[in-house]
């Protein structure tokens, strides 16, 4: 059980780091949203599940799972709202041809 928690924590942390690196490295706004929308959702979900396993079975773990559900529902909506606002403002996506 302890090993399982450790695996979840480490993989979650790996995806959070990748998301942060992606937000720094990608060339334009839309590609950065790919990193933030996907990497953060899975990373935080795995990390919090790992903490819940580490904590054992009680009310706090249930609340942690509630956070996972909330992140799973809310994070994609946040990304979509941002991309829609940017697209309506006329932000052009970066393309390889334009370089």
């Amino acid at each position: 059980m302890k090993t399982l928690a450790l695996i979840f924590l480490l993989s979650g942390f790996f995806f959070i780091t990748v998301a942060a690196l992606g937000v720094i490295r990608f060339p334009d706004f839309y590609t950065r949203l790919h990193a933030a929308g996907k990497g953060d959702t899975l990373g935080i979900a795995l990390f919090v599940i790992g903490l819940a396993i580490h904590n054992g079975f009680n009310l706090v773990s249930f609340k942690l799972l509630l956070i996972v559900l909330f992140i799973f529902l809310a994070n994609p909506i946040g990304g979509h709202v941002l991309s829609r606002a940017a697209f309506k403002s006329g932000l052009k996506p970066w393309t390889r041809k334009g370089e």
Partner: protein
Amino acid sequence: MVSDQLLLVFLVALVFIVFLMLYRVLKGPTVFDRLNGLGVIGTDAILILILIGFLEKRVDMYIDIAISYGILGFISLVVIAKYFDGKGDVDQ
């Protein structure tokens, strides 16, 4: 296997990631990049709060703060994005 020291390491690394995101927030170039960075900071702050709770042995209190912080961050992100809908400054 998951000791307090390991959680402390995670906490420090997360704070470092928040500072990395702060670079994106300050650099831009568009207002939506800044908002994206702020959104990532907001979700990472949930984890930081929970980890502080575990280290202080008071998770039951910090987790409520984390939930309300997450909900508030999400709502403010949506409201600000709605405000910039179609009239954000997109000059590179």
